[in-house]
């Protein structure tokens, strides 16, 4: 579905990403984790076609512009209502029935009752749902979410993950970055660990605990131990 091969990104002398390669299959929920500055946002931006890679390629039917994208900061028009935002992007995507697509997304994201409210008046959680909904309006085969829950309270986080989980169950490949390691443990089928632009680990959350020595049952402690062992 998505094939990342030998991806590198340089900003002048600084290497933000080095030789990143992995595949994502349909229905997978892949978490990209790592300390600040690891290159998570850069990686997702390249996969989503927002930023160009210095080397390497992202291939597959779900790569580049075809992927649904929800950046860390909601990319929505604050002066427009929820329905107007969805309607605009449905039309820009050239969907055959934009009104039906808007109704579907409103229902899927649970925003039907707020459809006529301007985004500027919504809570942070609902704004993020609109952000994700815009990424999904064209029914993409894959979705890239950059720290989608960073501004949400626990209840909002749980509702968002229920929604994202339902997408994965219908075959949508989901890549997301996060600092909430509990979410990785609870919802991700795979974790990719980045540090200083380098891919350190690619496997299931349980395998990450094992890779950290297996002694720690707490995922967050295991993750910290894993990084420490590798000098990060």
């Amino acid at each position, binding site marked *: 579905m998505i094939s990342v091969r030998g991806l590198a990104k340089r900003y002048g002398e600084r290497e933000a990403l080095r030789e990143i390669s992995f595949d994502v299959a349909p229905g997978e929920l892949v978490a990209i984790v790592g300390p600040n500055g690891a290159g998570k946002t850069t990686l997702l931006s390249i996969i989503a076609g927002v930023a160009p890679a210095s080397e390497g390629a992202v291939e597959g039917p779900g790569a580049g512009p075809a992927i649904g994208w929800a950046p860390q900061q909601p990319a*929505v028009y604050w002066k427009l209502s929820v329905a107007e935002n969805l309607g605009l*992007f449905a039309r820009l995507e050239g969907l055959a029935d934009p009104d039906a697509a808007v109704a579907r997304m409103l229902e899927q994201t649970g925003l039907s009752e707020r459809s006529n409210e301007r985004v500027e008046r919504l809570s942070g959680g609902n704004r993020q749902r609109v952000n994700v909904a815009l990424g999904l309006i064209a029914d993409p085969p894959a979705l890239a979410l950059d720290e989608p829950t960073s501004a949400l309270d626990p209840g909002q986080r749980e509702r968002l993950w229920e929604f994202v989980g339902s997408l994965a169950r219908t075959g949508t490949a989901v890549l997301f970055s996060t600092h909430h390691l509990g979410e990785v443990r609870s919802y991700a089928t795979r974790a990719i660990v980045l540090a200083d632009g380098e891919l350190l680990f690619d496997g299931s959350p349980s395998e990450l605990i094992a890779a950290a020595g297996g002694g720690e049952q707490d995922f967050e402690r295991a993750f910290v131990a894993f990084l420490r062992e590798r000098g990060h």
Partner: protein
Amino acid sequence: MRWLLGKDLLILRRSRLLVGVLVVYPIAIALLIGLAISRAPGKPRVAIVDETPPGQTIRVGSEHVAVSRYADELFSQVQPVHVSSREQAIAGISSGDVLAAVVIPRDIAARISSGVSQGSIEVLYNGNALEQSLVQSQLSSALAQANLGFSEQIQRAAAQAIGLLLTGGSLGVLGAPPNMVGLDQIPPALRAIIAHQPLGAERTQLERIDRFAEFADQNLGLSKDVLSTIGQPIQIKSTLIHGRRTPLNTFAVVVAVSVSLMFVCVLLAAGAVALEREDHTLARLARGALISREGLLVEKLLLAAGCAFVLALAMLAGIGAFVSLDWSRIGQWAIALAFGALAFGALGVAIGALAREVRAASLLAFLLSLPLAFLALVPSGSVSRGLYDAIGAISFVFPFKSALQALDAAVNGASPGLGISVVHLFGLTLVFGALARVGLRRLE
């Protein structure tokens, strides 16, 4: 693109404060600039202290010129406020009631009549450096005009006195002999007497007097002509080298509309592009095939240019109700405004693309536009040649001066023609459009 244009118009409609500022601010600025330019400096309000006794005259030979004529000349150049004393005049200046005061001293007639010293008047004024400069310049001009008018009267009196000396007759002066002989009558009369005189010392003496009388007649006659030349040695004859003369008030309209066009267009275009980046929607729009970056820039340019065009045309039509404009040229107005709007729009999208956030874009647009407008209005000859060339170069690479010239050509038929300015504006549109595209290389 139409969906995006519709979205922007909807956002604009909902941003009432922004729309209000975008419309009211340029109109207010434009009107102020227009008024400042079109209102020719009025006559300065000046206190006059005339200490000369009523009816006092200056004697020029046998002629008399009333001192009050000088005051009359001065009054025609200023807005006079008569006060009775120097102290009252000073009080008037201090309170700001008058810009300055002119004191005509009691002895002015005696000094001028003496023929050895000039008459003098005293000018009082205060204020800050700019005000002083303005008042001094206005008063100097008014006093020069009054001096000129008064000196012409004195010259006329002097010429009349010389004329009487030459032709003779009654001087009309108390005690002067009636029916006096004129200088030009003396040589023929003398020659008639000399013809009957025997040769000798008396005849020689008479011949010397004859030669003197002839010489005096010729030279005094010449001095009469010289006097009129001294009064105004150089006459000014104005010739406009090229183009049609633009009346000041219609030029002020052109300036006002151009300034409005510029502000609305540049601010709107810059803000619209920067808002896409600030809302993080730029990357969402341009990363895929939703809209190309060029398409996005064209959409913002058309949005800003369209709004500014409508506003400027409405403004021109509105002002046309008060100032006489040639409505048969409305097609040319539209062409000038359209190309001006496109060039300003391109400058705006370039600023928006480079500035990356709305506040920075607005500030940059404002900081760039205002000085450029003022620079474009600097007249040649008011600054040094080198500085004027530098200003000309700056004005050439930004659209304001060309837009102003295009609109002046469209409204007033001024030179250079509309075609040259429109081509220049189109070139600038392409240049700033390309710059904007460079600014959108990064989507984040």
